């Protein structure tokens, strides 16, 4: 999971693409945050995450998350386009198509 995500961030670093996490490691406590920092360094997690416990109700509660990990694919206009595609190849294809759409929209806006 994380290695694949790392590869996507690298591959699309110049594209309109970002991974955003909602992390439930309890980083509101010093111990949780220390552990998070250490693991993130080891695993090469460079992308930003919301602190799940940092909002009330928890973001995962608002989003009715039933199991972890849960994925939402959100397009450049903020619309949910896919949910829980887990197969890595399928995931990559879905995101690639969405990136093309985002780039096309950005171009037509400039004109």
């Amino acid at each position: 999971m994380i290695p694949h995500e790392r590869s996507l961030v690298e591959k699309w670093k110049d594209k309109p693409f970002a991974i955003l996490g909602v992390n439930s490691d309890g980083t509101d406590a010093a111990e949780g945050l220390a552990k998070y920092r250490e693991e993130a360094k080891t695993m090469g997690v460079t992308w930003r995450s919301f602190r799940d416990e940092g909002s009330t109700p928890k973001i995962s509660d608002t989003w009715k998350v039933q199991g972890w990990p849960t994925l939402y694919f959100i397009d450049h206009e903020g619309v949910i386009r896919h949910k829980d595609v887990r197969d890595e190849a399928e995931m990559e294809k879905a995101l690639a198509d969405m990136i093309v759409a985002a780039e096309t929209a950005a171009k037509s806006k400039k004109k």
Partner: protein
Amino acid sequence: MSRPVLAALLLLFTPTFVVAQSADATTAVTQQDPQAAYDELVKAFNKAISDWQTEARAAVKKAQEEGSKIPAMAMQPPTKEWIAKAQELAGEHAGKDNAVRFLAFVLKNATNERNAVKKAIETLASDHAKSAAIVDVVPFLANGTRFGATKQVLALLDELVSNHADANCKAQALVTRGGLRLQMARTPEDRKSAEKDLRDVAGITKDADLLAQAKDALFEIENLQVGCKAPEIAGVDVEGVEFKLSDYRGKVILLDFWGFW
């Protein structure tokens, strides 16, 4: 994969009971008192689960340190014995309202006991579908779907929605059925039928808790489906710095609910 699954199990599998403080359970109570028998069962069960969690955490930690495989015991909470006990107690009170709480125990706490769950649902349908006592079990009927009993669960919910005399029981059945339908929905029509159940709740009850549950589930239908505008997230990052999901508008976002654990 085993690690997140296990972490989820350890995190989520906290017994959900509030143990009722029965008056001096050791002396005054006869074995026939079903409430006392239930309290005893729950108490013993909670202790067994909490002991298991401690042991499982230690085993996982050890396995990780040694780089060895996580032992099987850590993956399976010791529910079997308690489910069997609950079944036995349900049997003792067969046909009476007092059986319902034990059947509820089975539905709430089974992890692997497929037959017990199916039997409990059958018994609820055959013996208790008209009883007022069944209302407390209704939310847990949804668990039956994890044990291959989806059809039976839906049939019982249909029965309660159509024929139960108590409005709140009907409403609870609608909430549960709507949630279940939503969970299983594959087509827009499926989602519509889920939505209808949840909207119907407001027509038959004023119970604040039930209305809130229905509203909550409707939020999912209205805001979290493919094609919906993603709800805004305004929060803080792991370092405590504020930011918003909409800060990233214009980009494709992979939103990942995750953790290292």
